[in-house]
């Protein structure tokens, strides 16, 4: 008798009326990540969408490079690059309607920019001049969340509220592979499934949480498998295949919008750069692995498809690269200006009405600054 059979024997007999709530089979992810590029499915992909994805990928890569360069010049405090993961970032933004909401994690600046947030405003947090530069209401983008997985329950709550109000709004929440270990991940998925909230949970599995590889993060067959236990479908997709990521996320968004409840999508991808500019990736991974992944580059994959189908010629590719350069130049120009900060802003947004204690502290700082500004010896 195998262990499994034995264990079966200890199971309490279910009462006669007991039935599983859901047959888990349709919820289970496929064994292999879903792919479009380089397969027959590619023929069905919309050329306009592919071109748009391509342009955004190229811009995104350039953005990552520019932001990383800015850390070297001391213009950014820190930058977590998403180079190699651009397909996920871009698809997450493009798949949403204007009225939908995006809940990004700290690495997801590109998704935020692709959603229409000003590239400079998207960097305020990392630059250090304020915590969130953009207006979440205007763009329907929550602040980049630094504490991991804590934004997931927010996405569920927002989507639930929209549903209660009769609004046709979907929330897409992004999280890393490491973040799926946090308790908040579990609670968010469970709430979403119980409430049938219109949420898409999008895991970018890039192999590492700083230095910790996936094998030390989970023993599950895949992160997408985690969905099943909550009663929602899990989907597995090649995270470097922009067309596939877009299709899978679009399906999930459609399902959510139609009242079908949440989906967990896991994209298999790779973080090509170090965790941030402050990290030494050679401590935990070898060059060979990185090189292998570089050969499965999201831009190259899409480029091959576009070229093979005659959807991209040299002139079009040039113009895409030119746009990316223009964006990078503008970003550089803005970031090289010292931000003008008013220290008084420290007190501006702690409460709707400042407390008497804060007003006192504000006057204290005002006096200190005035004293500082006095020319030497003028007393």
């Amino acid at each position, binding site marked *: 008798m195998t262990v499994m059979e034995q264990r079966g024997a200890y199971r309490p007999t279910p009462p006669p009326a007991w039935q599983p709530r859901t047959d888990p089979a349709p919820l289970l992810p496929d064994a292999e990540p879903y792919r479009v590029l380089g397969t027959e499915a590619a023929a069905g992909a919309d050329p306009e969408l592919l071109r748009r994805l391509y342009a955004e990928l190229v811009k995104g890569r350039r953005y990552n490079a520019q932001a990383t360069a800015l850390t070297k010049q001391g213009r950014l405090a820190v930058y977590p690059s998403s180079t190699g993961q651009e397909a996920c970032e871009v698809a997450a933004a493009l798949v949403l309607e204007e009225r939908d909401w995006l809940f990004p994690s700290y690495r997801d600046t590109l998704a935020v920019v692709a959603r229409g947030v000003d590239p400079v405003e998207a960097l305020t947090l990392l630059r250090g*001049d304020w915590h969130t530069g953009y207006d979440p209401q205007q763009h329907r983008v929550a602040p980049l969340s630094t*504490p991991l997985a804590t934004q997931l329950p927010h996405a569920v709550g927002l989507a639930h509220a929209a549903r209660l109000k009769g609004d046709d709004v979907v929330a897409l929440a992004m999280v890393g592979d*490491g973040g799926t*270990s*946090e*308790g908040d991940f579990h609670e968010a998925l469970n709430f979403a499934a119980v409430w049938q909230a219109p949420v898409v949970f999008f895991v970018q599995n890039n192999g590492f949480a700083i230095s910790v590889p996936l094998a030390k993060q989970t023993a599950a067959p895949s992160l997408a498998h985690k969905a099943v236990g909550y009663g929602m479908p899990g989907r597995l997709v090649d995270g470097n295949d922009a067309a596939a990521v877009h299709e899978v996320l679009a399906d999930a968004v459609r399902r959510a919008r139609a009242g079908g409840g949440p989906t967990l999508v896991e994209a298999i991808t790779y973080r090509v750069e170090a965790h941030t500019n402050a990290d030494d990736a050679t401590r935990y991974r070898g060059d060979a692995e990185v090189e292998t992944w570089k050969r499965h580059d999201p831009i190259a994959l899409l480029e091959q498809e576009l070229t093979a189908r005659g959807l991209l010629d040299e002139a079009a590719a040039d113009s895409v690269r030119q746009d990316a350069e223009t964006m990078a130049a503008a970003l550089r120009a803005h970031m090289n200006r010292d931000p003008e*900060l008013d220290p008084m802003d420290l007190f501006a947004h702690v409460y709707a009405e400042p407390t008497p204690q*804060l007003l006192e*502290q504000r006057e204290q700082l005002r006096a200190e600054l005035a004293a500082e500004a006095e020319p030497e010896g003028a007393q």
Partner: protein
Amino acid sequence: MTTVAVKPATMAQALTRALRDAMAADPSVHVMGEDVGTLGGVFRVTDGLAKEFGEDRCTDTPLAEAGILGTAVGMAMYGLRPVVEMQFDAFAYPAFEQLVSHVAKMRNRTRGRMPLPLTVRIPYGGGIGGVEHHSDSSEAYYMATPGLHVVTPATVADAYGLLRAAIASDDPVVFLEPKRLYWSKDSWNPEEPTSVEPIGRAVVRRSGRSATLITYGPSVPVCMEAAEAARAEGWDLEVVDLRSLVPFDDETVCASVRRTGRAVVVHESGGFGGPGGEIAARVTERCFHHLEAPVLRVAGFDLPYPPPMLERHHLPGVDRILDAVGRLQWEAES
């Protein structure tokens, strides 16, 4: 008599050495946390431990603070001495439930039958230009939770000595590591590293007669600097480094205040509901008749920690301390 070379070492190095020596001395000491193994921790404090002691004793855990501390509770229940690393101050909050509901209360709930000898290391505080959620001073939360010891070193020697003592303690210790002092250097004798005051004792870092600066952790060097600067204005300041917030060393603090008659409490966490309120009250209760002026507090503003470009306006610096010292010339009518 042997003479040992007293070499400069950083606080981070002393902490690493403390962990290593504790692990070598006692096989029940286990280090665990996010990135503590292969990477050696994001501040490299656990560097080399996984290699030397194996991954079972220096373990990269899944990314889950409640899980890390919760499993450490179980490990301690079974006789191990876990030393847990929380990556940054604000990332310890998911573990708050475990800390407050279980770690702090286990001895009490079990009428002493189930002590929890575990150490929670938390890099804390600002001044390193970190983005959001990387600069919190959370000591007031921990201080307000009976059942925990709360300690924070300000010198290289203390970093070693206090961490060894924390790991050896039969009670849970929240060990707050001032991030901005990780790279501070000091001459330090690694051959006699434990000769520091035990947990629960404050030390006078600088003696003086006109007033006492009561401080701890990252604010200690700032107070030392302020004391130097105050000499020019005729003030001879004493600096008391608390080292341990719980237990609190009333004796050393009050002895100092009785000598000087004046006191300022300095810390970078917010003043309202902050550690300074407790300290000022204790000093007033015990030294009322010796005080020439009210006990003043110099603290961070009562704000969520500001972005890096504004943090210098928030952190109590030398000027703000000197200003408070000036106000100690208390007069009845003011």
